[in-house]
């Protein structure tokens, strides 16, 4: 039952990414070339909306649906953040897709995006395999 809720939130997220054109290769090229405002506008409203919501949840000590306090796990820095982000950026610049849009593209009927997804799964798998040997 709870999982249905996650499905619903994912669906809303997916529709919005698609309708905001945030899954478009062309829109990403426009963003990376600073030739349009759509993507910047999305980030500049999404982040403050999320930040304000989290602030309010904490301030009014709002509980989760099962009555637990809201917990936000701190991200611990390691050098993988640096190396990984640089590599991800190259992939993002080329494919014009981060992980979310790949799913949305497939759902919208672009079967070719399955190739992107399988490649990304292979990348995650190879990282998992090599993790002990990589600098972090």
């Amino acid at each position, binding site marked *: 039952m*709870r999982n249905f809720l*996650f499905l619903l*939130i*994912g*669906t809303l*997220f*997916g529709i*919005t*990414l698609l309708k*905001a*054109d945030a899954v478009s290769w*062309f829109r990403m090229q426009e963003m990376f*070339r600073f*030739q349009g405002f759509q993507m910047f506008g*999305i980030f*500049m409203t*999404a*982040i*403050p*909306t*999320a*930040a304000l919501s989290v602030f309010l949840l904490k301030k009014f000590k709002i509980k989760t*649906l*099962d009555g637990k306090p*809201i917990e936000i796990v701190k*991200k611990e*820095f390691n050098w*993988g*953040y*640096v190396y*990984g*982000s640089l*590599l*991800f*950026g190259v*992939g*993002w*610049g*080329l*494919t014009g*897709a*981060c*992980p*979310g849009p790949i*799913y*949305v*593209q*497939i*759902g919208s009927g672009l*079967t*070719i995006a399955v*190739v992107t997804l399988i*490649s*990304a*799964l*292979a990348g*995650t798998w*190879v*990282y*998992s395999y090599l993790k002990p040997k990589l600098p972090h």
Partner: protein
Amino acid sequence: MEIFNVLRQQWPWYIAGPIIGLSVPLLLLAGNKMLGISSTLRQICAMCFPANIPFLKYKWKDQLWKIFFAVGLLLGGFIGGVLLKPITMPQISDATIKDMRLMGISYRENILPAEIYSWAHLLTWQNLLIVVGGGFLVGFGTRYAGGCTSGHGIFGLSTLQWPSLVAVVLFFASGILTANFILPLLLK
């Protein structure tokens, strides 16, 4: 139906951005879940091909919500792209369309350029490098970096985590350099 037609058009950033931002508190409220899409890739690897790799041997059954979220993304793509199929092409800036044309890419499709992303054109070494090589780096890099545009860019920044800021600045910079300097080499 008027509302139906409005929904089918491209949504402006000031509508879409806040909805995307609201996914952060919604996931927290629904069960202390932190927005992050790249970890769904790890989840699929752990479920389907764990191969005794320690990083893929975790209690993935406790994280099944990620799969439901990812299926939601697929469903969202179907609703937005098929049921509410846009009537007109989204407005991309003229400068971008011109730059793309110089690289041999035409703006005929809404989302993916047919010259790269079509079964007929995929099998050139340049296009394979873009789609397969790029896709591989998306999967490899996001896991190495511990997150992607959603996990670091939206969740991490909005919860004021400085490691996420480092990640966002670097993947954005790397994306800018790639799109402006590497992609043109591959396409020309």
